[in-house]
């Protein structure tokens, strides 16, 4: 696989998988305002997916479209980080995950606005506006739920405990990252770690939540080497029409 194609899949699949998970909430959020906000986030992420995967398809040059990439690849060809495919479980975990992701996306997209690849810079600029709003909202909600009641604090703590080992995957580095870095297309993810950590630590501190001491990081999503069992079920649902009726247009 071309490194640039692989890099774009990582961006597009992150947006797609989280967008899909978020869309699972439709109509069942804790309050009407949250229903609207979750749908809005999902909508932004699906929009970003179209841009990233659209460009990926162009770079690949194999005549595939963004939809082909979304609906006709199997698990081992997906390049999202594992944290995003983990099931929603409850509102607490959904919000915590969104926050941990947004805290990465904001500095990441900010850096990509300076990409030597103009197309990437343009997608990043558009996505950044949305990510800034998502971060503001998810951070606020994490603080409110962490601070709220004893019960809500416990739930948020357990959400954080489950998700924390998945956050390290953002900062791993391989040949794709090195190639992008050398071509001035993207920074090395690890260079964003200090900013991510400072956002995360200060917000979680305001939320009365504790980060575990472990530095263990699950991996295998962004390389496609080993996804969780959950992704296959997500794809079975998401891809059902395209798989069942090959060649039909909708």
């Amino acid at each position: 696989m071309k490194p640039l194609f692989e890099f774009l899949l990582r961006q597009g699949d992150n947006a797609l998988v989280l967008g899909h998970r978020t869309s699972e909430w439709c109509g069942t959020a804790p309050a009407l305002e949250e229903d609207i906000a979750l749908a809005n986030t999902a909508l932004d992420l699906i929009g970003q997916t179209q841009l990233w995967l659209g460009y990926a398809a162009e770079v690949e040059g194999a005549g595939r479209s963004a939809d082909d990439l979304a609906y006709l690849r199997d698990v081992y060809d997906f390049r999202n980080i594992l944290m995003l495919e983990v099931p929603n479980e409850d509102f607490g975990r959904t919000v915590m995950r969104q926050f941990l992701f947004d805290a990465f996306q904001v500095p990441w997209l900010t850096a990509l606005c300076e990409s030597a690849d103009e197309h990437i810079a343009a997608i990043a600029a558009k996505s950044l506006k949305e990510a800034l709003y998502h971060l503001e909202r998810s951070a606020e909600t994490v603080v409110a739920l962490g601070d709220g009641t004893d019960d809500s604090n416990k739930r948020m703590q357990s959400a954080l405990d489950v998700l924390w080992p998945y956050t390290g995957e953002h900062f791993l580095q391989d040949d794709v990252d090195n190639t992008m870095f050398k071509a001035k297309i993207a920074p090395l993810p690890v260079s964003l770690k200090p900013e991510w950590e400072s956002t995360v630590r200060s917000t979680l501190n305001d939320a009365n939540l504790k980060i575990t001491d472990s530095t263990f990081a699950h991996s295998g999503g962004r390389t496609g080497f080993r996804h969780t069992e959950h992704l296959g079920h997500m794809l079975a649902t998401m891809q059902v029409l395209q798989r069942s009726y090959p060649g039909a247009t909708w």
Partner: protein
Amino acid sequence: MYAQQVKSTGKKVVSLEEMSPADRDFQERINRGEKIEPKDYMPAAYRTNLIRQIGQHAHSEIVGQLPEGNWITRAPTLERKANLLAKVQDEAGHGLYLYCAAETLGVTRDEMFEMLHEGKMKYSSIFNYPTLTWADMGAVGWLVDGAAIMNQVPLQRTSYGPYARAMVRICKEESFHQRQGYHIMIKMAKEGTEDQKRMAQDALNRFWYPALMMFGPSDNDSVHSAQSMAWKIKMNTNDELRQKFVDETVPQAAYLGLTIPDENLQWNAETEQYDYSEPDWNEFHDVISGNGPCNTERLGARRKAWDDGAWVREAMMAHAEKKAQRKAALG
């Protein structure tokens, strides 16, 4: 309609001469086409009637998210997924406008939710039908949003100001939903594969009569409707709206190459409208009284969402209070 069989006073409409001076003044304002605003005088029965109607309408918007939400995770393309998400988000927004309109009459959103969950308030019968294939997303947009428009366009002129204004915002979005649904039908019924054509026809077969039921049984002789119409919170009879819906929908089905499942459907040159078969009103009453195909699931899903979300709502409140206290302690 989204508000079906809303009970009014249950008595015959009182004439102007028989009214108290305040009620007469109120009725004359309505007759002149003036808008009633939250702080204005209104008869208690007008208020109660409106709460029932707007509440039922609001509940329909949010329960209505569920049958379409059922397909968001299976939408066949990224664009369809985004469109459906946007539509369902609009419906949540409609719910919000309407709950706000009802709140101006002195009932809270939480109270209305409780009444919904306890089965004391209803929502439209249409949302108790299952969505089984992707064509149902087309049929729902085309027929259900289409039927909603028939009812809601006149309601933009309704006598209660906040309700009328909510309707203006809602109507703009509903016609977009209807076009989106019809576009799905075009893709499947007109341009699609054999499988897709079958799905489209099957969806029309299942949704035609439930869509006709949305307008409610004939209310030409209903005292409830007569009172609501005198108050201008109902603008047309159920039969008028249903006829208008049939007349507009028949040519649209023909364009799609789909057959409306009614052998008696035919153009009547004398009346210049279509003759059609009535839906099965026994089925309608079954659905309304809780025995529709999805009543248990729909209400169950709403209750579960409410119960599962309780800790979140409590925490948000507790946090807001703590924040206020901390601010007070500082200042």
